[in-house]
């Protein structure tokens, strides 16, 4: 039927016939090697082959109906996928406009707003294609080729829209199996990432056991959140004061740069004066963060709490320091990482 399906190791497909899907998509980039085999149909038509794919729930945003006359043809999947490859690769701004127009219009008809909004919020570092294996491999964009390269396959991209993937020696050159292999490598990459995140997963081998570990870990984390939130509900009422103290200290330290203990002692000595001074300065700085009101509230409560304390027995400053030190250790990792550009 189609001469290019599986006959040659290096597959290249032009972007054909997708203009009816996206009115603002520029068809000038389409090269015309091989004729158009897709009959021109109205924009409301979704090929039934796509509707079978679970990830194609996102495609249904282009139109929920499917025409019975269209043959189940992977080329249709290729075509729509290439259009998306175009979005992902080259013109994110235009893609969002075009994609957003379609998706907003039809998102009420489909429940897959997950994937559609995912498409418009494209993260260039991650390949966000729906990743169905049936969808042809040459639609992957340049980011894709960079992840394919270390696997040993030779891949070069002549244009921004699609990559040419060369099959390894002695392996099937079918477009489907190539896509499968690419997908499997993506999955194994992500499993390795997860293995590092989940403690105790490095000893475990095999996808099934690792998945079990991951599931247990996520469950235990969620249970911990629930347990800790119950605990926080019943903990000491003095916590409120300390929280306000933490809030003000956090912001002061984050924009002060270094966290030194020297800054704490004057606070204990003359809290009202220092906090009000610094609070006013910080309030002006953080207008964009929407923290002005909360900061004023924090300052007020801080002042009132200090006034209350002055009348009672003076509490040792160790508590405050301990408190703030704990927050410092939690946040200092973040500072160090951000300074050196690491991931926190």
């Amino acid at each position, binding site marked *: 039927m189609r001469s290019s399906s599986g006959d040659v190791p290096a597959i290249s497909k032009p972007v054909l016939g997708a203009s009816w899907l996206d009115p603002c998509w520029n068809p000038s980039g389409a090269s015309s090697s091989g004729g158009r085999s897709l009959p021109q149909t109205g924009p409301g038509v979704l090929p039934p082959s796509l509707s079978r794919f679970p990830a194609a729930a996102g495609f249904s945003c282009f139109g929920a109906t499917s025409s019975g006359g269209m043959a189940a043809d992977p080329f249709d999947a290729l075509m729509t996928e290439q259009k998306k490859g175009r979005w992902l690769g080259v013109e994110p701004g235009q893609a969002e406009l075009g994609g957003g127009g379609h998706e907003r219009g039809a998102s009420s008809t489909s429940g897959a707003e997950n994937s559609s909004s995912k498409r418009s919020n494209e993260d260039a570092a991650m390949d966000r294609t729906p990743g169905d294996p049936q969808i042809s491999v040459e639609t992957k964009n340049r980011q894709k080729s960079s992840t394919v390269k270390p696997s040993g396959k030779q891949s070069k991209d002549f244009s921004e829209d699609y990559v040419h993937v060369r099959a390894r020696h002695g392996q099937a050159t079918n477009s489907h199996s190539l896509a499968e292999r690419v997908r499997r490598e993506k999955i194994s990459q992500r499993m390795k990432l997860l293995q590092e995140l989940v403690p105790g997963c490095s000893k475990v081998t095999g996808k099934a056991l690792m998945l079990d570990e991951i599931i247990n870990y996520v469950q235990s984390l969620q249970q911990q959140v629930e347990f800790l939130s119950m605990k926080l509900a019943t903990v000491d009422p003095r916590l409120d004061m300390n929280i306000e103290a933490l809030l003000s200290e956090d912001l002061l330290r984050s924009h002060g740069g270094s966290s030194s203990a020297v800054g704490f002692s004057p606070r204990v000595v003359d809290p009202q004066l220092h906090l009000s001074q610094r609070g006013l300065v910080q309030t002006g700085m953080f207008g964009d963060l929407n923290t002005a009101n909360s900061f004023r509230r924090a300052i007020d409560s801080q002042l009132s709490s200090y006034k209350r304390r002055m009348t009672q027995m003076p509490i040792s400053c160790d508590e405050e320091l301990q408190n703030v030190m704990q927050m410092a250790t939690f946040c200092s*990792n973040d500072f160090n990482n951000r300074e050196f550009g690491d991931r926190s």
Partner: protein
Amino acid sequence: MDSKSSACSSPNPNPTLGPSKLMLAFRFLRALSLVRRTTPASSRTCRGRRIERAAYASMAYSAGASRAWSRAVLRRLHHRARRRAVAPRRLSTTAGNRAEALRRLVPGGAGMDYCTLLEETADYIKCLSMQVELMQGIVDSASSYGP
């Protein structure tokens, strides 16, 4: 809870570096103090549930809108707030198919393919562990005061 969710509208300034611990701490502490101030001390479970929702909300806001799971969390929280329904417990049994179990655990996992699910799980785990670390730190500092 609507006031809490609408109060913070600043996006994540460092999406590439991953979720920011400082912003998470700030958001959560603010929400925590708000909850403690507004709910009566007698209704402990009600408070606990609200704090848990605050934890997930601050997690989701810190992660940013670029993550599918954070959008799903916020969507779920906003819908619950509107309909005034109590959030059902997310009990997940490890079904025969592990991928399905993972989908049930990770918010927004039902609508994505396996590859994206793994990616979202990784980010979700990162944010969850940060949140747990933060909450544990607060509890520790609170209990260190002692009677």
